[in-house]
């Protein structure tokens, strides 16, 4: 597959996507390689198959370097490499810019890192790219995914896609691996990418269709994305006995000011307008949410012993993985925030989160990557008890013609 320029291009790291009509997300002026059916790429470390365009191996977390990074949705040429790298400088070098594969110097002291994975001078552990990574497919769309402090592995995953211009379709997917299950870090990453690829490839829905048609099409796309994510989890489930891999799922598709969100589990999407009422768009599939529905206060329910018990998830043992969906038109400008519980555990109420984002943006600047990184840092400063993922899309002011008929209310909510 070769992606073409502008809206007419489709993005798919796995090569599942082909060009579509207006509305599909594209990468301007960058050629990609085919993954499926194309040149078979193998991880140099563990020999697992890897999709072209991926920055690190799904199986072992090895840094794949520049060869596989070509055409990566996460590293479009329009994004400076400094932004694509992890804030602490430990992230993978941007493949398009740094062709050498020499191991990165120590992120703490700049010393040489030995083959055993530790610095020869200060002994700092080389940072696994799986433990902390960021994506920014377009200037207005970015995410940071971090191990946090308490957990040994990062079982969160994020995958993004977006066109280069504000107002293009943006896709944000977050999956949170269930930590009691085996290989959830591998499965969650595969799930997020699979869902992202499905959503990035669907035809545009804006032109000509009625609102109802568009909502139905988006909801259907989210169901397909959850199917693909679920298949990916199952494909990465170890045959060994034990707890099969499982993860949550939340995906947001933004086209202009039209937003559709689907979810399974307790990862969330928030709409945080610059002015107006901030909103939590998702309703957790969790024991806590059931308690809230029964009248228990959110604070009490979310701090109880069963607060993190989810009632629905993706995986081979999932009873039902059909996402609940919500669609709405956004009264921009503002932030679409998609996150795992590693963030919202410390700031659950939408109005609190909006205040936090405003406050944080005041210090980090308003770029989505810097802001996502600052929010991750904030969650770590609160204790970092869980893996933390923050994905952000900046929604610009809608044009005057668009605003007239928009509502901040969900125009449809489907239940499975």
């Amino acid at each position, binding site marked *: 597959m070769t992606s073409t320029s502008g809206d007419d291009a489709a993005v798919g790291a796995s090569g599942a996507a082909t060009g579509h009509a207006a509305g599909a997300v594209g990468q301007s002026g960058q050629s990609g390689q085919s993954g499926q059916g194309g040149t078979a790429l193998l991880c140099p470390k563990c020999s697992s198959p890897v999709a072209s365009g991926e920055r690190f191996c799904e199986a072992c977390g090895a840094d794949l370097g520049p060869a596989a990074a070509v055409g990566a949705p996460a590293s479009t040429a329009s994004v400076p490499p400094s932004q694509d790298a992890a804030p602490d400088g430990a992230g993978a070098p941007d493949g398009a810019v740094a062709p050498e594969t020499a191991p990165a110097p120590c992120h703490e002291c700049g010393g040489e890192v030995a083959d055993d994975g530790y610095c*020869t*001078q*200060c*002994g700092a*552990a080389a940072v696994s790219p799986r433990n902390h990574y960021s994506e920014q497919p377009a200037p207005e769309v970015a995410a940071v995914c971090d191990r946090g*402090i308490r957990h040994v592995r990062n079982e969160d995953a994020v995958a993004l896609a977006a066109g280069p211009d504000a107002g293009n379709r943006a896709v944000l997917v977050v999956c949170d691996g269930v930590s009691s299950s085996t290989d959830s870090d591998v499965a969650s990453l595969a799930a997020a990418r699979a869902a992202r690829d499905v959503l990035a490839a669907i035809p545009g829905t804006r032109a000509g269709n009625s609102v109802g048609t568009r909502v139905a099409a988006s909801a259907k796309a989210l169901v397909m994305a959850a199917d693909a994510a679920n298949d990916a989890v199952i494909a990465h489930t170890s045959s060994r006995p034990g707890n099969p891999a499982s993860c949550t799922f939340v995906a947001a598709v933004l086209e202009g000011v039209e937003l559709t969100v689907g979810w399974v589990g307790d990862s969330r999407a928030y709409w945080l307008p610059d002015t107006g009422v901030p909103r939590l768009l998702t309703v957790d599939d969790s024991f806590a949410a059931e308690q809230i529905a029964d009248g228990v206060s959110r604070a009490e329910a979310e701090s109880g012993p069963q607060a993190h018990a989810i009632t629905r998830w993706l995986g081979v043992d999932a009873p039902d993985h059909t996402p609940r969906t919500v669609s709405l038109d956004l009264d921009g400008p503002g932030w679409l925030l998609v996150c795992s519980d590693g963030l919202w555990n410390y700031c659950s109420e939408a109005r609190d989160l909006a205040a936090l984002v405003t406050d944080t943006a005041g210090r980090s600047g308003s770029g989505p990557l810097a802001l996502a990184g600052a929010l991750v840092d904030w969650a770590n400063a609160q204790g970092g008890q869980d893996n933390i993922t923050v994905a952000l899309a900046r929604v610009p002011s809608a044009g005057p013609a668009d605003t007239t008929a928009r509502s901040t209310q969900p125009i449809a909510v489907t239940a499975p």
Partner: protein
Amino acid sequence: MATFSADVYQNEFLPDGGTDVHAIVTVACSGAGEAGQSGSGDAAEIVIVDTSGSMSGENIVAAQRAAAAALDQVLDGVWFAVIAGSHQARLAFPQDGRSAMVRMDATTRAQAKAAVGGFRADGGTAMGTWLTLATRLFAAVPSVTQRHAILLTDGYNQHETPEQLSAAIEAARGQFQCDCRGVGSAWQVAEVRRIATALLGSVDLIAQPQNMAADFEQIMRQSMGRGVADAALRVWAPQGSQVLFVRQVSPTVEDLTSRRQDVNPLTGAYPTGAWGDESRDYHVAVRLPAKAVGQEQLAARVQVAVADAVVAQGLVKAMWSNDDTLTTRIDPAVAHYTGQAELAEAIQDGLAAKAAGDTDTATVKLGRAVQLAQETGNEEATTRLRKIVEIDNADTGTVRLKRSVSKLDEMALDTASTKTTRVKK
């Protein structure tokens, strides 16, 4: 071809603000082959027998038999010599007036055994002179890369000053390894231990002369089974850290800390001598600057180096956590060997206090030793301690010193104090 492995046993989790990392590193060698057969150089053996006047009677006869038994174990082709030691050192074999050492074959073996058979007990004891001659003999054969000696004595070093002995030990350090044996109860454990420790060898008591031959045979067989001439333990620790100690903890306790030779500013080498097919455990302790909770850090690379090539490596890690269930756990191997090292110290301190007439300190120290032997399951130590103290309560370490104690029992406890039991893994 010898292969080494290094396995690390530790709890890598440190509490917030924690700085000290402890690990037991088990180094195992297999396929070592036989001494002098690796192609990297020849092996050499010297048998040093005390022939001072006090050896007269059954001791000198037993020593002759023991030396002959040792010579029987020396492989053909290995360089060797025999030293008869009194207040001066005499080269008993070879006696051709030219050679320092000769290669073992059927002829030289018979000649050497004949020379040993002619030993007469006469003169005093100056062990420094014996070591000095051995150092000179080894140095005279340039093709030799693996050097080992057996030293037998029955008395204390009364015909030279402690300073003279120290100088001889220092000159011999790094030149050859020496296993030392004392027969009877007239020798001083501390004095002979000083030689053995410096020369990477063992020290033991032969209570009865008739046991001497079997012991010598075993020592020489073990030495011939050491096909790796010399290996060093290397410990890398990060910038800003401090290596608190490096201690061999099995099969015996030996503090190696002061033997460090810098490989580079962050890496020290600790000589461990020759290796056969065996495993030894090392306790490495490193103090790090504390890092934030959630951070991971390499605390030490523990490596085995043979001829300056690293042949095995184990990683000692540190990970700071605020999870008490992780940070409060003490690794069983670390706990076991910490107890065994303390046991050795308690026994030696207790016996020293007893010898100095400090009954209170001796009672406390030996009581603690009884307690530690009980805790770490060292039944041999308990059995030996029982001959020195009446044990009222092993769990609390309540003991009374026995009124009359055999000197040999005390020496047996002292020489065996550094022997450890392996941790059950």
